[in-house]
């Protein structure tokens, strides 16, 4: 084990995989000479050279598509978006091409590509730089979507994503890059895509939270523990395919559930998880599932409004109180 920052864990995953497979290359804005806008790819240009660490112009649609074409033709690209907010420009390549080419050619092409970068908000960056995209991509068949919360998960799942023969979207957070955690060092350490993890055991209520929201849920759980409310936290880690079994198993124990999601409420992960719970665990529920999400508005700039906008531990506590009929 080594204590690594989130960014170092991601870098280690990329580095280890690149050193084992010549066909892997990294492409994106400022990834090479600038060492990465958030220093995730620091040092990799020196190690792998300009053939495999490629700075792109600000042409998201173009370089995402060049990545897809290169993947069709035998390479294994890791395409970095400075944030997924800018990947919206590349959505055609991800949604219309990466996710569909295998299917519509009757399986003739393979698209082993990873699209990665920060997701969702990162402080007061206003409306266009603050959106959470995991559920949007999960909507489309043919894409796997991962949004992890801790360095070890990030390393293990990114390595799996790079080895996967399908398009995978791997999401991070600017605000988590400095977060430290114990990370296994073995070269063959991977975490399977599609497996949730119970990260905190508890018996009173299940809180489902991934990505940055996992940490909001943890803060809430710690406060609730002081009031003798025993929270179990399930981190889905992979949004699609979604490991609903682990969530349901937890609910069979706790009979109550709150889903925390950094997306808007309509059609997000919280909506999907809520539906699946009523289908799979209806008889086990002692209260309707509650969710804590962003409001149905764009991200405001003003500090006070932004704080109001972003899900908080207090909102999670309120939701837990509701499902446990405490207050």
């Amino acid at each position, binding site marked *: 084990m080594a204590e690594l920052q989130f960014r170092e864990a991601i870098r280690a995953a990329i580095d280890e995989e690149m050193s084992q497979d010549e066909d892997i290359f990294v492409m994106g804005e400022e990834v090479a000479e600038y060492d990465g806008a958030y220093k995730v790819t620091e040092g990799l240009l020196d190690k792998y050279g300009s053939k495999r660490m490629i700075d792109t112009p600000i042409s998201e649609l173009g370089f995402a598509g060049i990545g897809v074409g290169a993947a069709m033709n035998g390479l294994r690209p890791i395409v970095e978006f400075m944030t997924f907010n*800018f990947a919206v420009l590349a959505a055609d390549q991800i949604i219309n091409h990466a996710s569909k080419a295998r299917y519509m050619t009757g399986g003739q092409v393979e698209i082993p590509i990873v699209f990665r970068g920060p997701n969702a908000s990162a402080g007061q960056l206003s*409306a266009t730089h603050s959106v959470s995209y995991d559920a949007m991509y999960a909507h489309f068949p043919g894409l796997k979507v991962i949004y992890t919360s801790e360095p070890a998960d990030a390393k293990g799942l990114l390595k799996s994503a790079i080895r996967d023969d399908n398009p995978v979207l791997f999401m991070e957070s600017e605000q988590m890059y400095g977060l430290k955690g114990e990370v296994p060092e073995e070269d063959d350490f991977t975490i399977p895509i599609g497996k949730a993890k119970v990260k905190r055991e508890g018996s009173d209520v299940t809180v489902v939270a991934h990505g940055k929201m996992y940490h909001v849920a943890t803060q809430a759980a710690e406060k609730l523990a002081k009031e003798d409310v025993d929270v179990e936290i399930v981190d889905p880690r992979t949004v699609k395919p979604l490991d609903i079994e682990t969530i349901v198993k937890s609910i069979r124990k706790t009979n109550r559930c709150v889903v925390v999601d950094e997306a808007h409420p309509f059609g997000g992960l919280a909506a999907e998880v809520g539906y699946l719970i009523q289908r799979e665990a209806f008889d086990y529920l002692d209260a309707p599932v509650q969710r804590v999400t962003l*409001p149905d508005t*764009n991200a*405001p700039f003003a500090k006070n409004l932004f704080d109001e906008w972003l899900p908080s531990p207090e909102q999670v506590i309120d939701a837990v109180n509701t499902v446990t009929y405490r207050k």
Partner: protein
Amino acid sequence: MAKKEKNAEEVTFTPKGTGIRTNGEIVRSTELPDPTEKKHSDLDLSDDDVVDMFEQMYLQRRFEERAMQMYQKGKFGGFLHLYMGQEAISTGTTYALNDDDDIITAYRDHGWGLVRGVSPKEGMAELYGKETGCSKGKGGSMHFANVDEHFWGGYGIVGGHIPLGGGIAFANKYKQNNRVTACFLGDGAVPQGALHETLNMSQNWGLPCIYAVENNGYAMGTAVHRHSVGEIVDRADGFNMKKMVINGMDVLTVYEKMKEIADDVRENSEPWFVEIRTYRYRGHSMSDPMKYRTKEELEEYEKLDPVARIKNYLLDEDIIDEDKVEEIEDSVEDTVMEAIDFAEESDFPEKEALYDHMFAEDDYPFHT
């Protein structure tokens, strides 16, 4: 056929080299064209006009210097992209256009706002995220706007606003109101597909729009020759569009050329593609170590400071004396300090404002 094995070392993609001037060699797309030799009087500008140009430019400079200090003191957060070094472009252009001509730009927008009617108070309050800000604290540094005075705002998705500029021009042509649109973008936006799609339609449809690249040598840490091939301005050729390269470090030059172009656009309802060469004195945003350029390069451009240049012009031409310059500078300083006080004393938006400005109607049923 036997193929020769290529050595892995030989294969490379993006051009290497960080600085735009390596070993004193000037790389394409950065060489400054000569400034105009004309005096202000040859350009139909009065003495007062040039004094005002200086004042406007100095205001943009001081506003940002002070904003930077406040940011460093932790008075407000978010991004802060400074326009310092490029003030001749906003000022010269605004002078060249009519007051009801339209301007739209990217996120490096403070200078544009200030010269197009965003008061220093409203601007500073916007940086602070206060309800008295020009965008009610909803947008912050990247989204200054003053639509009443035809400044359509700053936009944060690189290249995203270029079609909007085309659309504003489209509406003007549709309404036959004789207004010209000036759509500004960074060199970094040139490789975005949105530009090329928009240029094609603009030429084909005869949209009265000037697409003007503020080429400041860099897109974040990427020198212009590393992100774009050839001369930027030559993009126009593929669309059969009129084009020009302009020295952006001299306000009189920007004024002269942009006026010529605006007159032509107004007369013929045809777009132009313009590359204005300039330099960004500060980092991309506030957390940029600037390793991609040399100190020497920065110093070379600091010698061309557009604010100092117009000040010296005023003195050399005996338009005003040192005392008058000092008086202007002092009064600008007071204005900026008052703006800071105003921003600090202003209130944050009310909580309910979170739901304001989402829809035209005020009883929209928000999803929960």
